[in-house]
């Protein structure tokens, strides 16, 4: 079975631009979470979606938004990019929100903002 997939692998944007990152969860998983990992730091929680509804949001500005589609895939959108948005963006999927549901991570999208 395929694991969590993310696209694109790498992305280079300039300040002020908009970016869309995509994530496909493991088949059967209904929850997707997004994390930002700045170089040298641990991942920081951005969003969690379950059954197409936002279930959690981290301390990120409104420039960050996300959605989940009927097939449970997800998009993370970032508007008005800043240099500080350069990071590895990780997607994780889980069966649901139960506390015993393990989160499986994708390989990430490396975003560079120039």
């Amino acid at each position: 079975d395929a694991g969590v997939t993310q696209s694109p692998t790498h992305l280079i944007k300039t300040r002020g631009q908009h970016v869309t990152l995509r994530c496909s969860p493991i088949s059967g998983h209904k929850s997707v979470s997004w994390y930002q990992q700045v170089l040298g730091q641990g991942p920081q929680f951005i969003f969690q979606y379950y059954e197409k509804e936002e279930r959690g949001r981290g301390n990120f500005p409104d420039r960050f938004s996300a959605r989940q589609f009927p097939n449970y895939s997800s998009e993370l959108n970032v508007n008005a990019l800043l240099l500080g948005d350069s990071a590895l963006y990780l997607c994780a999927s889980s069966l649901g929100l139960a506390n015993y549901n393990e989160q499986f991570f994708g390989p990430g999208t490396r975003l560079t903002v120039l």
Partner: protein
Amino acid sequence: AQTVTQSQPEMSVQEAETVTLSCTYDTSESDYYLFWYKQPPSRQMILVIRQEAYKQQNATENRFSVNFQKAAKSFSLKISDSQLGDAAMYFCAYRSSGFSGATNKLIFGTGTLLAVQP
């Protein structure tokens, strides 16, 4: 708010030796989960081991074991018989137990980069 602290930015171990990575956390909750994740240079985050706070017995997974000290809020990872493939960034993470329906987000530490010397 919960926090996770890893005070060792880098560690080194000789192949076949044992190494212990440290992690402390802060929480007012009584029930929660703790994890160690491995992130090799390929970037894919992989779960190494998990510990439920209500379990007194320390978790073990083959060469990996934890020392969970709930009162001290300490959660260290011991890697025995270290192998070259163990070289990676290791993250300690916390998750609230909460209840079904709430977010099961992870709170990560800053990581420890482990080098394995042949």
